[in-house]
């Protein structure tokens, strides 16, 4: 990705080819294909990266289902649900942005990118509100963690084991924290894409950065689509 960006920023190019083409590629098609394959492979890495966490989560959730359900109930599913909708909308605006770039519709492109950024910030804002609440309630794992006398849903007389709840919150923070980190990186990418678009460098002929930046954004959304039910909706039906 950084190579294709560099390509655009480097005007001093000899030869008759497009300024966006790097020396070591034979043609633009090859460059585009390489960039997009590179992103797909990077996403495969990301899948395994989150995969390790999902694996740990599933094992403990199976072992300590009641405690996890009790801990999960302290999350506000409405905030999580809102965030899900926010992210789905942002993915839609990314699709619009790619379409606009391919069609050369400048104002639509710029608006879509701005909207994507707005949704991205909205997501982080809501996440921030949720995190703040965790700190207030001492639900952050560590020395000050408290989870006393919380009932296990569906078992009125059973008290959740605070140690197991702490594992839940540890995984909650690591998983959503890593996801938020990916969101922040994504926002950085989209700010840069917006600047490119503003300068008119995303054209119907050359929009690879937007295409692969979009791929990344969709991936981060999909991770959330899994995180939301796993973390927020445990045993909600009871």
């Amino acid at each position, binding site marked *: 990705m950084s190579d294709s960006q560099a390509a655009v920023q480097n005007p001093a190019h000899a030869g008759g080819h497009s300024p966006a083409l790097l020396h070591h590629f034979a043609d633009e098609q090859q460059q585009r294909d390489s960039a997009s394959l590179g992103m797909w492979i990077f996403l495969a890495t990301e899948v395994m990266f989150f995969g390790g966490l999902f694996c740990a989560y599933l094992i403990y959730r199976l072992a300590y289902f009641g405690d996890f359900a009790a801990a999960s109930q302290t999350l506000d599913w409405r905030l999580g649900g809102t965030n899900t909708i926010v992210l789905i909308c942002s993915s839609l605006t990314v699709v619009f942005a790619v379409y606009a770039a391919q069609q050369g519709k400048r104002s639509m492109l710029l608006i879509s990118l701005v909207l994507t950024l707005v949704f991205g910030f909205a997501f982080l804002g809501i996440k921030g509100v949720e995190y703040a609440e965790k700190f207030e309630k001492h639900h952050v794992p560590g020395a000050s963690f408290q989870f006393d006398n919380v009932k296990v849903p569906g078992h009125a007389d*059973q008290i959740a084991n605070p140690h197991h709840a702490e594992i839940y919150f540890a995984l909650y923070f690591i998983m959503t924290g890593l996801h938020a980190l990916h969101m922040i990186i994504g926002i950085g990418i989209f700010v840069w894409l917006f600047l490119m678009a503003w300068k008119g460098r995303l054209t119907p002929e050359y929009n690879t950065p937007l295409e692969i930046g979009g791929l990344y954004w969709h991936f981060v959304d999909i991770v959330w689509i899994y995180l939301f039910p796993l973390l927020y909706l445990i045993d909600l039906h009871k």
Partner: protein
Amino acid sequence: MAGNVDALYIFLLIVTGLMTLLVFTCVIYFAARYRKQKGVSAEQIEGSTPLEITWSVIPFFVFLAIFMWGAVVYFKGRTPPRDSTEVYVVAKQWMWKLEHAEGQREINELHVPAGKDVKLIMTSQDVIHSFFVPAFRMKQDVLPGRYTMAWFHATKPGRYHLFCAEYCGTQHSGMVGDIVVMEPSQYEAWMGGGSTGPLSASGEKIFAELGCATCHRSDTQGRGPNLQGLFGKPVQLEDGRTVNADENYVRESILDPQAKIVKGFKPVMPTFQGLVSEEQLNALVAYVKSLSNAGPAGAKTASAPQNNPATSKGTQVE
């Protein structure tokens, strides 16, 4: 045990020796025979699918045979015989604490009779250790927070090395000891001295001190399940599962009572995590076990074989 492992080992030495010989002979012969010579150039050979299949399939079946033999040996090594002498092992940085079911306690030294099966019920107070007796070809990691099982059958009296085989910190190499195998008669004499009474008896005392008996009564009126005859039997749980009442189940029920609620009971038992030491826990487990042995005075089973229905495969390691 040692014999089984060694037989397989020798078999493998022969098989791999032959394979090595085959490869090395070919390499050395070809290397000498087809060294560069003037006017002779290499003959290009594309390859041969029948050959490839041959040297994939034949090794595969050889491997399969090794696998099966290895699995049989492993299975035996993991399955303690029914009426074995039991020894509780507590590992800690950096020593072995061993406690016979009959009550004798030892450190870094374990006396066992020759010709008897000895079952080890092991746990760790801190990090992961591994109980390794090379002479018996036996090794099992010892984990904190759960029991792992192992067993051996010593045949010849003598002293044998006991090692910790899982790296456990600064004095890992100092966590060594001896297994002293004695003639049964000598062993009886050794057992005669210094016992404070069987482990299950001290378990009974702890059971009373902690007030367990208030709920776990020997009739059906208690707030907790009746423990008489429980050990080794399947237990119906509240959530519909059935588990086998083995050492790990008893252990977990004491430390994390909410984890598995017996059908028909309420999750009212408090945890004893941090309130009982590993040694006390072992005594309690031994006591609960003794309640399942024939005769009302289950606790007095010092040297009698314990005929608890051997807690089949899954319990050995999980």
